[in-house]
């Protein structure tokens, strides 16, 4: 049979009707009842899927879709099931890039994967941020937690540059900093999961960090205190991120299972793999920057 039109092959799927406001309100009511009675599940890391799906992701979604207009590339490189380690560049003064990558993998990936982030201990020291991060699925960046999550078949996200990456001045944008001590590579080796290099373009421009008020940072116990064109000049208005255009690209997985778990004890291999991941991300950053029409385009 000759199809009349080439796209007749695909059955027509009517776009899912957005739920009526009544259903939405009823759903919200259900959610509130669950929250009041505590009848929801949380895991040993403090991850609260109920809160994440009904409050945190809906808050982040408009930023993802409308404000930063994030384009996600290479999702086929992220497996549908099983553990994998997503390694990405870190930038933007505050870790918005981590949140947007979480939304990207949950909303755009066919398997709606949850990204379990690894955060610095400072995050968990801070009130509100710490407990909210845990509820969003974040846990402490340490080998024990990373390996436990990977063994359980979770998708783990890590930003090995840490504060060096996120708090670097605007003049150094899109140049990768040192990749920690390679702890993420040894975690992947020990659990035999693939490493997925991920390049994020756009986060550098949301809060261009022109200067660092070291005295204020020391007083507040923070690793840096950003001075951007709008902060602290415009006060709370300075907290509004600039609407840069974002691209998040997942690269081809680097498999680690063939090295065996003992390879984690081989520092040379760990360093080489760390460099390989770093180089891949840097190249893909340059490629994406060429691809992007303009900072806000």
């Amino acid at each position: 049979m000759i199809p009349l039109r080439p796209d007749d092959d695909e059955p027509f799927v009517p776009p899912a009707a957005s739920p009526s406001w009544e259903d939405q309100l009823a759903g919200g009511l259900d959610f509130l009842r669950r929250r009041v009675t505590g009848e929801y599940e949380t895991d040993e890391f403090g991850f609260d899927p109920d809160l994440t799906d009904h409050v945190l992701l809906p808050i982040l979604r408009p930023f993802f879709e409308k404000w930063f207009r994030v384009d996600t590339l290479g999702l086929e490189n992220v497996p549908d099931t099983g553990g994998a380690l997503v390694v990405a560049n870190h930038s933007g003064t505050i870790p918005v890039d981590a949140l947007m990558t979480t939304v990207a993998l949950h909303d755009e990936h066919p398997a709606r994967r949850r990204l379990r982030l690894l955060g610095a201990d400072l995050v968990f020291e801070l009130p509100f941020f710490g407990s909210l991060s845990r509820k969003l699925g974040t846990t402490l960046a340490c080998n024990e937690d990373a390996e436990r999550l990977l063994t359980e078949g979770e998708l783990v996200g890590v930003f090995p540059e840490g504060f060096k990456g996120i708090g670097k001045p605007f003049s150094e944008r899109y140049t990768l900093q040192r990749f920690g001590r390679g702890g993420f590579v040894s975690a992947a080796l020990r659990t035999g999961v693939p490493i997925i290099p991920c390049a994020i373009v756009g986060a550098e421009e949301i809060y261009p960090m022109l200067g660092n008020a070291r005295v204020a940072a020391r007083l507040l116990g923070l690793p840096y205190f950003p001075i951007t064109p709008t902060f602290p000049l415009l006060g709370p208005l300075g907290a509004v991120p600039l609407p840069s255009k974002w691209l998040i690209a997942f690269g081809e997985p680097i498999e680690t299972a063939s090295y065996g778990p003992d390879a984690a004890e081989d520092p040379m291999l760990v360093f080489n793999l760390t460099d390989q991941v770093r180089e891949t991300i840097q190249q893909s950053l340059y490629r994406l920057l060429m691809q992007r029409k303009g900072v806000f385009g």
Partner: protein
Amino acid sequence: MSRWLGGALAAELAADPTIERVIGVDTVPPSPAVLRRLGRTEFVRADIRNPLIGKVIAAASVDTVVHMNISSTPAGSGGRTPMKELNVIGTMQLLAACQAAPSVQRFVLKSTSAVYGASSRDPAVFTEKMHARQVPSGGFAKDSVDIEGYVRSFGRRRPDVDIAVLRFTNFIGPRIDSLLTGFLRMPVVPTALGYDARVQLLHEDDALSVLTRATTGDFVGTVNVGGEGTLLLSQAIRRLGRVEVPIPTPALGSVGRISRRFGFVDYSPEQMRFLNFGRVVDTTVLRTDFGFTPRYSTTEALADYATTVPPVVSPGLVESTSSRLRAALGRVGDTAAAVGERLRPAPPAPGLRAVQDA
């Protein structure tokens, strides 16, 4: 042994015909309720800080010692100084007595997962091989770390003695009296503002089974004992129908002092840290090497405890409020739909138009 867990363990052991004698030691006599269940247990009123304990062990040629005389709150033992004395000096005295008694073959320590500390630098789940990232600075946790240290050195001096160290998570249940049960029994529960701890609970029945098994079994080593799964502190409070009152951490200390004065619960700095960050332990060793799977998960243990505490916010009230709201919502929706229909009549069926077009 005059409190619930010790009394229950003694009763359990006394019911076992293969055990020749059961001797319970405590500074206060057991309550009549505990006494009734003790059966053939012999009670000796003694203080482990007193050398008399050595005589008890030697005279009865005791072969198994279960040490559970560790106080977790200053209020229970009349202040921090007597508490530390009871915990640390008491343990040292007891171990000295055990070392001198050749009859002792087995030593079981009821320790706590508090030895892992609680801080923002901790991994989410502790295994037995891990150590506290920040050694607890004081109170019960510090005492427990010290006690475990003394027990380890006792093990070095008496290699022939089998030592089992049980690191329990927080106890909960209808009968047991623990820090957390007192805390959650308050109608209004103060918590640290901006923090939410992960809590792992152990049901009293499981605690008793583990203690009995450790006493009569042959497990040697250290094992974490906790129920399956975890809850957030806020979640546990909500499930019990309590009202959570988040208080800024600096003020939490004075609230703790006030609540101590009125005989509720007292918060020490380390308990406050626990309230901030919580603590979860891995129980693989318990289920494999030790060979015991707790009957109650954390959630089930809390639910069993909940049957004994009347909720302040009753789930029925929440249920009826939410269903009433839902009914109201339905009515509003119907009205809106009717109004909408009147304003914008439904378009004619599309099938009809197609015929016309043809």
